[in-house]
């Protein structure tokens, strides 16, 4: 039964990958990356059970954490680069 | 402590580097870094004498015996190179404090010294280790430090040169990694001595063939063998002058050493030269490198760039020595490695002095400069003579052995090529001498004083070393002779 779940997750990953490649907007890609990350979390958890050594789930935690941080990072720096012109004026004001 | 010498000479600079970061004050950092370097130099001299007395030294890291743990192995092949690296570094650091004043912003000085120490430690580590993967780790330490040092140059082209070097160097390192991986998959070991024992069993496989090819190409990228040399001229020309002094004298030599070690010790003479067309490849590239780089050097206005191309040409000589596949050939290469380190050190350090006063080292601005900076230009003259290979200098000794190795093989054309290469170096050195000594001072010549003693003293130490080892050759020749005999003694 783990197998079925693993296949389902893999299919979902593949579909998310297509979306990440196709875009069209950057936000679509970010969304796809996020979905992809969550699915990887699931995949690794299932693989742990599949191989019979589920005690190393710590890795899954790191995947989830990094997934979150990456999404925030993309948002953060993308917003910055989009509104760089306005950012410049603000920095000057702060000085 | 005497048994720990082999590891001490690497960990002294390695630990001094973070300690420098704690000191923060740049004067203090300089003093501390110089002290650590001199200590390292002393250690490596002791190590050399120990190796000469009692043969190769093996040191097991963490007390784990060889194929399981990492081993340091100092023998006649690498001990003199260790002395060269730490010696040049110590001398150059003496001059560094003055030399970087005008070239690097003041608040970067501490980082500069730390990166310097790390670079030196990396080079020493590559040289001392007996473990293939450890070579990669220390290669990366020295490379990362080198990229930093080059990028600190004043000109913006230094950044671009550094980036190009970073890409080329990383590709080279990754090729080396692939090579090591393929060796590992066939033998199951990473220790060089163990590899040497286990590789013959599988030496007819395609995998080992590929491993060898990738490893050699990776190393050639690092040692800037023609035509993989494209990163080198810019990197040397735009790096801070004192960095160029250090790198030109040591970095490529270490790569040549790694090449010799793997060709002769790890893969073995027979594999390298009979299963693999190494001889033809190396000879062609070596000779092509000598001519192309020497000719390009003639047309350079920037003297640092000219000397950089000359370095590429000299690498050609080193590779040519390897391609002779004879004891004399290897001995000539080893000898030339040490000697070229000394002469390029002196030449680039004199350029550092020129840059310190003039801001640049362009030939067009150096008319009659010898009358303004007599000691500096005299040092350049002697270094240049040594580069050409005039008797009584170190250059003569290594060229002599190189030519005799060629004749020993009966390769007349190659011997002629070597002499012709020297002729080319006469041309580019003469251009400088002519402008500096025989052109009268023009308006374009800046009004400058002689370089300060803090640069002149290290410079003349190197020049005197050039002369001393050119006259009293007993030490260098005997050491390299023993090393070459060792390499061929282990002939399978």
């Amino acid at each position: 039964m783990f197998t079925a779940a693993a296949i389902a997750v893999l299919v979902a990953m593949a579909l998310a990958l297509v979306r990440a490649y196709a875009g069209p907007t950057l936000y679509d890609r970010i969304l796809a990356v996020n979905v992809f990350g969550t699915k990887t979390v699931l995949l690794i958890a299932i693989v742990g059970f599949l191989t019979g050594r589920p005690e190393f789930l710590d890795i899954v935690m790191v995947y989830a954490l990094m997934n979150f941080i990456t999404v925030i990072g993309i948002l953060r720096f993308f917003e910055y680069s989009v509104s760089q012109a306005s950012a410049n004026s603000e920095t000057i004001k702060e000085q | 402590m005497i048994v720990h010498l082999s590891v001490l000479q690497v960990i002294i600079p390695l630990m001094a580097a973070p300690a420098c970061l704690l000191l923060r004050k740049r004067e203090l950092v300089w003093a501390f870094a110089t002290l650590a370097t001199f200590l390292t130099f002393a250690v490596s001299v002791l190590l050399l004498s120990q190796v000469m007395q009692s043969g190769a030294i093996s040191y097991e890291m963490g007390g784990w015996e060889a194929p399981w743990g990492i081993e340091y192995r100092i023998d006649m092949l690498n001990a003199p190179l260790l002395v060269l690296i730490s010696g040049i570094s110590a001398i150059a650091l003496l001059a560094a404090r003055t030399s970087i004043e005008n070239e690097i912003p003041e608040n970067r000085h501490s980082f500069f010294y730390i990166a310097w120490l790390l670079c030196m430690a990396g080079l020493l580590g590559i040289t001392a280790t007996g473990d293939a993967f450890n070579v990669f780790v220390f290669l990366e330490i020295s490379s990362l430090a080198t990229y930093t040092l080059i990028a600190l140059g004043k000109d913006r082209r230094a950044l671009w040169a550094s980036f190009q070097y970073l890409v080329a160097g990383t590709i080279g390192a990754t090729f080396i990694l692939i090579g090591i991986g393929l060796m590992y998959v066939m033998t199951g070991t990473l220790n060089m001595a163990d590899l040497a024992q286990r590789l013959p069993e599988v030496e007819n496989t395609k995998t080992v063939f590929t491993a060898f090819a990738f490893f050699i190409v990776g190393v050639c990228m690092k040692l800037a063998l023609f035509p993989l040399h494209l990163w080198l001229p810019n990197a040397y020309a735009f790096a801070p002058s004192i960095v160029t002094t250090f790198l030109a004298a040591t970095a490529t030599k270490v790569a040549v050493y790694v090449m010799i070690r793997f060709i002769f010790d790890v893969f073995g003479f027979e594999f390298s030269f009979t299963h693999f067309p190494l001889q033809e490849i190396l000879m062609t590239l070596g000779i092509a490198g000598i001519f192309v780089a020497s000719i390009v050097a003639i047309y350079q206005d920037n003297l640092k760039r000219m000397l950089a191309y000359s370095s590429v040409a000299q690498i050609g000589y080193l590779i040519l020595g390897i391609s002779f596949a004879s004891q004399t050939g290897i001995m000539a290469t080893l000898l030339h490695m040490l000697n070229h380190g000394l002469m390029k050190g002196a030449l680039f350090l004199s350029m550092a002095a020129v840059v310190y006063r003039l801001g640049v080292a362009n030939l067009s601005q150096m008319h009659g400069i010898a009358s303004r900076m007599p000691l500096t230009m005299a040092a350049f003259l002697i270094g240049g003579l040594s580069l050409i290979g005039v008797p009584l200098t170190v250059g003569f000794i290594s060229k002599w052995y190189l030519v005799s190795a060629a004749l020993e093989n009966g390769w007349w054309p190659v011997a002629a090529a070597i002499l012709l290469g020297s002729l080319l170096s006469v041309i580019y050195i003469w251009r400088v001498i002519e402008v500096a000594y025989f052109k009268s001072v023009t308006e374009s010549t800046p009004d400058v004083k002689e370089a300060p003693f803090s640069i002149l003293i290290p410079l003349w130490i190197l020049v005197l070393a050039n002369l001393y080892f050119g006259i009293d050759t007993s030490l260098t020749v005997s050491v390299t002779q023993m090393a070459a005999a060792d390499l061929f003694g282990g002939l399978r």
Partner: protein
Amino acid sequence: MEFLGLFNYWVVVILMMIGFYIVICSNNLIKKLIGLTIFQTSVFIMYISMGKIEGGTAPILAEGVTLYSNPLTHVLILTAIVVGIATTALGLAIVVRIKESYGTVEEDEIHAKDKKA
């Protein structure tokens, strides 16, 4: 897993070469660095595949398990990953400086500006 045979390695070689291609071919310095990362990561994949043993598990000792995959390749690649990120970080720092002093991060534009100077 028999039929995987060398297929695994061939795919890895393709990955490496794609990375290598990006490094050589792309004009943008940041993309070059990303290509380097891919190149290196593929080499890591090669190493780790070499250490895999059929039916083995992670080299963390446990009762009742007798077959472990090779821990040495794991150690080597841990080190290599660190080297990789160190190189990337330094490369990016140089790119930032290049952008500041050249005003561009495209290789041909930098060449053009150097020629002019």
